[in-house]
């Protein structure tokens, strides 16, 4: 009984770490996919509507 409990606890720790690693990979791909903010064009490049 003690050994079963011990193995379950170790498994829980491993699953927890694996969850952290999975979220880390999701985070890295999300952060990499964020497009950088496009800076506003300088005044000289703006088209004058008139």
């Amino acid at each position, binding site marked *: 009984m003690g050994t079963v409990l011990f193995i379950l606890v170790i498994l829980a720790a491993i699953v927890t*770490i694996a969850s952290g690693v999975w979220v880390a990979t999701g985070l890295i791909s999300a952060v990499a996919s964020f497009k950088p903010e496009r800076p506003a064009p300088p005044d000289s490049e703006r088209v004058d509507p008139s």
Partner: protein
Amino acid sequence: MHTVVSVALVAGYVVVLTFVAIRARAAREYSEFSLARRALPLALVFGSLCATYVGPGFSIGFVGKGFESGFLFFGIGLAYALQNVLVGVLVAPRLRALNDCHTLGDAIGQKYDRRCHVLAGVISAGLCTGYAAVMAKAGGVVFKDVFGVPEWSGVVLIVGITTLYTTSGGLRASVVTDAFQFTAFTILLPVVLLLALGFHLEGGIAGFAERASAATQNGLASKTPFQIIGLVTAFLLGETLIPPYANRALASRTTRVSKYGFVLGGLFSIVWFAVMISLGVAARGIVPVGTDEDHILLNMVKAIMPTEGYMLLLVVSVSVIMSSLDSLLNAGAVVFTQDIIRPIWKLPNGKALDVGRTATVVIAFAAAAAAAAVPTIIDGLLVCYTIWAPAILPALVLGLWLKKPRPLAGILSMVVGALVAGLSQLVAGGLTKVPAILPALGAAILAYFLGHALSREKGA
């Protein structure tokens, strides 16, 4: 040498967190601030949801409970896992399927009317501020314990940094920083457990099992059946769909992501509770009996890890607190804008973004100020749980499931639920053994059906 490594660890953590927050960049539209454009993938919904619910109560608090009462709280915590799975299967996809819905108040407003919408907003914003005050208090306690500085300085530091990135980046900044913080504590705390089990286990595997059994029996003997029922109810309903969770359900990329985010979040809570409780049981051979529950994890890490480990614990604790606090600040600000201001004054999106940002700062100030009035972390959380479930859940769940929900039923249920929960705690607190959440929930459900019947008679 120890100091250099410790400072490098904390500095490295701050640098990566800042990088992640900056990459999330400032929200330029209200839909970005409130719902991250409804584009969150499963890994981020799951990580952010778990990071939000794993606050100081489910980490430091659970380790203390494991130390005192073994696996009793693991059993009680299963109610929390069940709640998340049920929300994932039954409620989250329905919420996500509603159009133009930013908050629970929006959902209630769509199902009932504008009065219910605003009332749900007032309750939600108040509760978010209350929960945030508890997190701010926890930040102060951690800084006081680790550095010996006054509690208020920790409160100011943690609330200040969290407010900075939440005000600028809104929900997306909150979610990506949550995911980073989730990664930090889900790797570091199980490693502490594995080290304790591998190198500091007195009596080997049999000793661990004996300590677990003795502590669990102690825990069972120290609680009446009524208290256990009250705790199970609080874990089952107390945090169900509080505003930051609802935001994540609504901001998911699809209804499937919303569903599986919650189902996986529920299943994760089972392994997380097992790890925290086991840390507490393992600590029984390391930390002296009689140590205060909230200090078990701290003392255990101090005993078995080098100085760097202690700094690591600070990083973990700060991650746990900030990931809950940022979600609460953002949710409170969105609720204030969407459920209180917008139904009364028709704000364009640009103005709504400004109001949301201002509300984030105001709620942060209020939470920091109220932190001083929070008695203990667990007590503060229990007060919030007791009010949230009766005040909102009957109106929300029945509103989503009934064909023709009546506004009078929604109003009566929210008002009666909030009042009975508040009064049971203020007036009868400590006088009865019945946990306040039970009569308040019963009263709210009764009031709902009374309002429903009265409206039907009027309509007939």
